[in-house]
């Protein structure tokens, strides 16, 4: 019974804390006070639910309890401030909410979470802080969990959060949906944070596998919130589709701790449900328009997802999509991917020629995937000597164990194939 109530509170925290906190911040005008009140309310729940039973609407119970604590807190502070009035200049200026807002019954406005996400992802905060604050407040992850996921000491992460909250309070970053003139830039910042969280979980660097998977799920959950609240934005749908289509391959891309390339993945392990949803979303996004980089990347992922076998992949269309993506982001990395797609559709000779042309500038010389891509072209053309040389260059440039294992495996394969 006790563990049931505790489990219910735990579940509620994961699912509802973002929404509850968003409302409490609006009411109290302070991240810290809202967090404190919510934590106290959850502690009260753990104390009383096992005995009295879990209430019918646990989320509303927590919000109401936290709201009472906020009112008490504000009264205590006001009395303290009045007593200290003569010394007021010594205390930092603090924004005390007007009584009215605080005394009103707490209503969940549908856009509270949107306010919260825009504030957390405000470009006046540095990107690391944006990510940490988003995961802490909207995701309900603990400081320790976030620190573990990003491989930074917990102390560092805690300081990052304190500094970010202080800037929100003292530079007065508003708790509002941005004005139309700034909405476009600000939405891009929100999407960038969500995609960063996703990639941190997806890219197989070191660290706790479970926490990493949790980050992907969290990014998808945040993406859903964004789509739910601003569904007319085609890039929001594009981002969501992109994450779902990548995530659908999660069980196939690592086997016994080893990286499995898209080509060699067991496609029966792909998550069909995620693929169906991703395909629907990207279709909706492209119909709504305007097209953008997230949609183009999702469309590429969609073509992979739709191929029943790797030989059936429509590389011609993928190359064309990379070409359009280059119009948005002309980076050497995207150009490299484009060349690989051309190699797969128009022939390895042509692909290799383009890859070498990209390498001529020297920009990609320290990039392990550039050498890995060249090596792969040589391998496919059975030019094993040149392939081995390029694989070794790539190997020297990555410190990621999973990537090193993969390159070593390739080297062993071609050593076996050499006549």
């Amino acid at each position: 019974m006790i563990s049931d109530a505790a489990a219910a509170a735990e579940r509620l925290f994961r699912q509802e804390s973002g929404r509850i906190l968003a409302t409490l911040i609006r009411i109290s005008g302070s991240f810290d006070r809202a967090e404190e009140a919510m934590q106290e309310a959850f502690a009260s729940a753990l104390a009383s639910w096992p005995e009295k039973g879990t209430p019918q609407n646990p989320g509303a119970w927590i919000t109401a309890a936290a709201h009472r604590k906020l009112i008490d807190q504000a009264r205590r502070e006001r009395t303290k401030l009045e007593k200290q009035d003569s010394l007021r200049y010594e205390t930092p200026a603090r924004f005390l909410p007007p009584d009215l807002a605080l005394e009103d019954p707490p209503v969940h406005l549908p856009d509270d979470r949107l306010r919260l996400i825009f504030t957390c992802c405000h470009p006046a905060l540095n990107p690391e802080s944006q990510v940490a604050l988003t995961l802490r407040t909207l995701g309900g992850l603990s400081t320790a969990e976030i620190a573990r996921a990003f491989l930074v000491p917990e102390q560092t992460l805690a300081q990052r959060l304190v500094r970010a909250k202080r800037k929100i309070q003292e530079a007065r970053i508003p708790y509002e949906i941005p004005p139309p003139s700034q909405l476009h830039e600000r939405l891009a910042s929100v999407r960038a944070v969500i995609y960063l969280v996703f990639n941190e979980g997806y890219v197989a660097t070191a660290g706790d596998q479970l926490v990493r998977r949790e980050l992907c799920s969290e990014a998808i959950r945040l993406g859903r919130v964004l789509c739910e609240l601003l569904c007319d934005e085609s890039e929001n749908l594009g981002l969501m589709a992109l994450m779902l289509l990548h995530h659908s391959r999660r069980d196939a891309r690592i086997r016994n701790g080893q990286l499995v390339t898209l080509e060699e993945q067991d496609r029966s392990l792909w998550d069909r449900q995620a693929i169906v949803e991703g395909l629907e979303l990207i279709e909706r996004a492209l119909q709504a328009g305007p097209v953008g980089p997230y949609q183009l990347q999702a469309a590429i992922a969609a073509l992979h997802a739709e191929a029943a076998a790797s030989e059936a992949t429509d590389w011609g269309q993928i190359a064309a999509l990379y070409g359009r993506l280059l119009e948005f982001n002309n980076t050497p990395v995207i150009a490299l991917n484009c060349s690989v797609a051309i190699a797969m559709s128009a022939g390895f000779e042509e692909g290799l020629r383009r890859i070498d042309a990209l390498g001529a500038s020297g920009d990609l010389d320290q990039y392990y995937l550039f050498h890995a891509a060249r090596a792969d072209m040589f391998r496919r053309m059975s030019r094993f000597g040149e392939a081995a040389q390029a694989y070794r260059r790539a190997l020297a440039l990555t410190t990621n164990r999973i990537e090193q294992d993969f390159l070593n495996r390739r080297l062993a394969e071609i050593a076996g194939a050499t006549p």
Partner: protein
Amino acid sequence: MRYMFLIYSQERPEGPHPAEIEDIKNRHWAVMQDAKQRGVLLAVEGLKPTSLATTVRASQGKSVTLDGPFAETKEQLAGYYILECKDLDEAIGWASRIPSSCKGLEGCIEIRPVADLPKQP
């Protein structure tokens, strides 16, 4: 809340391009007029170039006077506004209208909240 908008400009000895001078003036003028009409203009000043700057530094109980600005950087302080704004987003809105090429080429606008001075003891 009061925010200071520090205008950092890329200084060129010859100043901004002659073709741009009128445009820069007009844009500053528009910001000043608009801010004044809304009653939020608290202060605005432009500075002469850093070739006229003098730096005084206290060192071991003595003050040392030197020619030039505090730091030789690409972008130099060229002037400031102080405006009353509701929040940082409103301040960002103003900053995006303030031209920064007053002393040569485009630089940037730094927004800083203004602190309250403690009461006189």
